[in-house]
Structures are given as structure tokens and as C-alpha cells.
């Protein structure tokens, strides 16, 4: 990792971030969503983006992953500008993305889904797939079944596993608990922590603020496309202004 990179505004500790957005404006077509947005992810961290609907949380992930090109500002990965690079190339750099919906190939088998997750790998595909099956036995039992036959929770596990076949060092996860029953959501959050234990830094968007921040090292509160607050989960959850304005409490 290079040490001569420009430190983004707000960086406090000694580590160089793996991923950072600095002063990013971005949006869909003519519609601007992000406005001077800066977010940083350090190695091994779990960082959670929270905020009201339409605050631009998912847009941060999509811009980081090249599905949207930043209008201004930079997206850097290990200090290298990746803004506007295509998703299929960003995957090869070492970033994975788990969309909120439609995040598995329903008509393909579990095995084929994982193979698709590894199309950009040069070698070691079989071995990494077996490792993932060991880690997530819930999907191994169904490896020859079509993904559309999985339950919501199993589907989410498969979506993670698909993204992990590349062994990314950053994983972007959009609302892992969306549409899941509460206890299934808890399982999924445990899986997120487990993925993090594999030395993958995680930037995630989550509606369930308490649970999302509960497993995170840091959090950002977004509103109207920009970061309003940044801090540890305790700081954010205990801040009166934050909880009144944004956390519904």
C-alpha cells in the first residue's frame, strides 16, 4: 500500500483508507443525489451508512462501484483513482458489491451462481468455492438447486458468497436485512461480521440503524446527499441531535 496518498478530509487515525470518496457529487441522469460527499473505509473496518430514505446511501455504494460516474470529486481505492471505472473492472481490483434486490441469478444453480462470482479469477476457483461452502453450509446442501428455490435468508447468504468468491478486500453491501424476518436478519448480520473476520472491510447501507451500527466500527449519517455526522456507533446513537433528526428517536 502506498503511503504518499492524499489523506481525505476527516481522516483521523494513522491507517491509509482502502476506499475513500472525497467531495463526490453524483446522481442519475440529470438528477443530483450526492452533494460533496466524503466517506472513508479503513482496512478491516465495518462502516455503516444510515439516514433517511433518499439521503443517497445506496448512491454512495453505486458510485464507489462504478455503476455511477462521479460528477466531481474522487473515488480512490488504495490511493488509486477508480472513479468511473466499469463495475466489471472494479471487481477485478478487489471490491465486491452485494445489491439490495435481485442479488442472485435465480435461474442458475447455487454452484453456478458462485462460479459467476468468480469469472474474473485466474485460478483457485474450486478451492475458494469449497471454502465458502464450509463457511456457509446452509447453501452447500443446495448446491445443485436453482437459486430461486432459496428462502430469503439463504438467498442473502448466497449473495454474499457470490461476492466473496473474488476474495475482495472491500465489500459493499446494500441493506443486507431488507425484506427479511427479524431473526433471519440477525443471522445475516452475524454473517456480515463473519465476512469481516476474513479481513474484508465492509461498507454497508442499513435501514435498521441499531442493528447496523451495532456491528459497525464507525458510522456516517447521510442526509440530502452529504455527510451530516460521523462517529463511532456509541457517539451516533447517543447524540441527541442525530437521534432526534435521523434515527427516529
Amino acid at each position, binding site marked *: 500500500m502506498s503511503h504518499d496518498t492524499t489523506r481525505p478530509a476527516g481522516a483521523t487515525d494513522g491507517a491509509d483508507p482502502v476506499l475513500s470518496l472525497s467531495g463526490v457529487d453524483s446522481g442519475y441522469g440529470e438528477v443530483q443525489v450526492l452533494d460533496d460527499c466524503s466517506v472513508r473505509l479503513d482496512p478491516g473496518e465495518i462502516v455503516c451508512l444510515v439516514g433517511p430514505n433518499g439521503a443517497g446511501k445506496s448512491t454512495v455504494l453505486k458510485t464507489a*462501484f462504478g455503476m455511477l460516474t462521479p460528477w466531481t470529486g474522487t473515488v480512490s481505492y488504495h490511493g488509486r483513482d477508480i472513479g468511473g471505472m466499469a463495475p466489471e473492472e472494479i471487481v477485478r481490483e478487489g471490491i465486491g458489491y452485494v445489491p439490495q434486490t435481485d442479488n442472485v*441469478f435465480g435461474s442458475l444453480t447455487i454452484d453456478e451462481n458462485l462460479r*459467476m462470482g468468480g469469472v474474473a479469477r485466474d485460478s483457485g476457483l474450486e478451492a475458494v468455492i469449497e471454502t465458502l461452502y464450509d463457511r456457509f453450509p446452509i447453501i452447500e446442501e443446495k448446491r445443485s438447486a436453482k437459486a430461486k428455490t432459496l428462502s430469503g435468508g439463504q438467498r442473502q447468504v448466497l449473495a454474499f458468497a457470490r461476492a466473496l468468491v473474488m476474495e475482495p478486500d472491500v465489500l459493499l453491501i446494500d441493506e443486507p436485512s431488507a425484506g427479511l424476518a427479524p431473526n433471519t436478519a440477525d443471522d445475516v448480520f452475524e454473517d456480515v461480521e463473519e465476512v469481516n473476520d476474513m479481513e474484508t472491510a465492509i461498507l454497508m447501507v442499513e435501514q435498521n440503524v441499531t442493528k447496523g451500527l451495532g456491528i459497525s466500527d464507525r458510522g456516517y449519517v447521510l442526509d440530502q446527499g452529504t455527510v451530516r455526522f460521523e462517529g463511532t456507533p456509541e457517539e451516533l446513537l447517543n447524540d441527541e441531535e442525530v437521534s432526534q433528526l435521523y434515527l427516529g428517536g
Partner: protein
Amino acid sequence: MTVIGYLANGLVFSSIIVLGSIGLSLVYSIADFANFAHGDTMTIGAYTALVTFGVVGGLGGAVLGLPYGFFLALVVGIAAAAVVAVVTERVIYEPLDVDSIGLLITSIGIAFVYRALIQIRFGSDFTRFDIQPLRPIESLVPYGVRVTLHDVAIVASAAVLVVGLHVLLQYTDLGRKMRAMADNPDLARVSGIRTRRVKLWTWVIGAGLAGAGGVFLGLFNQLSPRMGFNLLLVIFAAVILGGIGSVYGAMAGGFLIGMINQLTPFFSDVVEALPIWPGWLASLLESLVSIEYANAIAFVIMVAVLLVRPNGIAGEGAT
């Protein structure tokens, strides 16, 4: 002719329709576009094979009543159809920043261009491969089956191509990527699939199979600049009947439509034999269920199937 006889004819015609349907369905599901130039892509395959056969016709021996040169011409026809489709994709469709309806309209224009070019070079008359027509296979005639060795060659070649496609789709990396893209194009990119490349291969395969279908259509009937376009609506019916976007559905739909088309004379025999009352209804049905309306009958059956299964044979229930 007996029922088996009609079924045998149906099998031959179905083989040609299936080859056309697969490509239309593949390009629809992976490149997200209903290609109206697909029929004329078949015509390109047929005429390229015609020219090639003219050059290499006398080559070597013969299989199933077809000179070796014909098979070489078939391969060149397939290649030409694929190359023309890929060039069109790269030069015309890809640079166009329009939605799928815009592409559809553009492809109608492209269809006219393909056909005009063929007409300029070959005129608008019918022509045929310079291959001796065969008599029906003697041993099958007592069963009312009048097929030639050429027909057998058409069915066998189509079967080889369809099985080859199945193996490609199910067991190769490219095939899995194609299925992944048809399933969820966004997730395909997110997974790292270089979708542009897969799309080009889809054109190669889809147009190549169409080219083969065109060559066989030329062998089965004859060649004319309108041959492919005339078949296009029937192929669309097959693809929709099968469940648009499903390759296996397209195969099933192509098979059924081809069968129905060739079974029409049998249907009219049945209508004649039925004690339909009153008499005017009987004569009305008799005149409607006749060979001139073979395509219309195929469409009526398509509509009937879609009323029961709105997403086609391979579609998933009603949505």
C-alpha cells in the same frame, strides 16, 4: 399421406424453424432486443452458401445425397451470417443510443438493407442449389412417409446444432455467462462478466444458427431474397409461444409451430371427416383449415396457448 407422413414433414420444417427461433430468442434475452433483421440474416446464410457451393460444388463424395461441398458451403453460410451480424452490431446497433424499441425499428431498416443487397446481386427470382433432387426414401413410402435423404440431413444437422448449443449453454463458461446475463444483466456486470464480449458471442451463435436455418430452408424449398423475411413472423410466433427470452422455450415453440404448419393438410382431412352441422359451418371450416392458411392456423394456436399460459410454454406461470 398418413399422419406419420405429415409428422415427418413437420419434423423437417420444424428443424428449420427451431434454428431460426433460437437465435431470435438468444439475442432477445441477452442483448435485450427483438431483431427484425433475423429472417434476412437467414437469407444471407442461404445465399452465401449458394455462392460457395457454386465454387466448391464438385468437391469429393457425398453424404445423405449431399456433396461434401454442400457442407463446406453450409459452414461458410453460417460464418457469413455471424460476421454480418457482428459487424452490424458493432457498426450500427452498439453506437446507437436508443432503447429497445428504437433498436427494433432500426433492425427493420437493416432487414431492408440486407434484402436489397441480395436482390441487387441475385435478382428477385427464385433459385436453388445445383443439387440433384432426390426421390423419397423407398422403404418409408409404404408408411405414407415421403422424405428424402436431404430431409434426413436437415433434421440430423439441426439436431447436432441444437445439442451442441445445449452443451455450450449448460457446461461451458461462455454458456453460463450467457444464462447469467439473460437472467440478470446488472448482476452479471457486478460479478465481473465482461458483458460486451458475451453479447458479441451471442450474436455469433444466434446469427450462425439462423444462417444454418437459411441454408436448410434453401435446400428444403428454394432461395429467394424474401425467404427469410417471409419466415420471420412464424419464427416470432414460435419464440413467443415458447416463452420469449427462454432458449429452450424457443426450441419447443419452433418445433410446435413447424409441426402445426405442416400438419395443416391433416387438420383439414379431420375437419372434412367430422360430422359438423350445420352445413355452412362445415364448409366454412373446410375452407379456413387449408394449406394457404397454414401460418394463420399456427398463429391461432399460438394465441390459444397464450390465453392459457400468458408467458408461453416455458414461462413461469402468470405474473
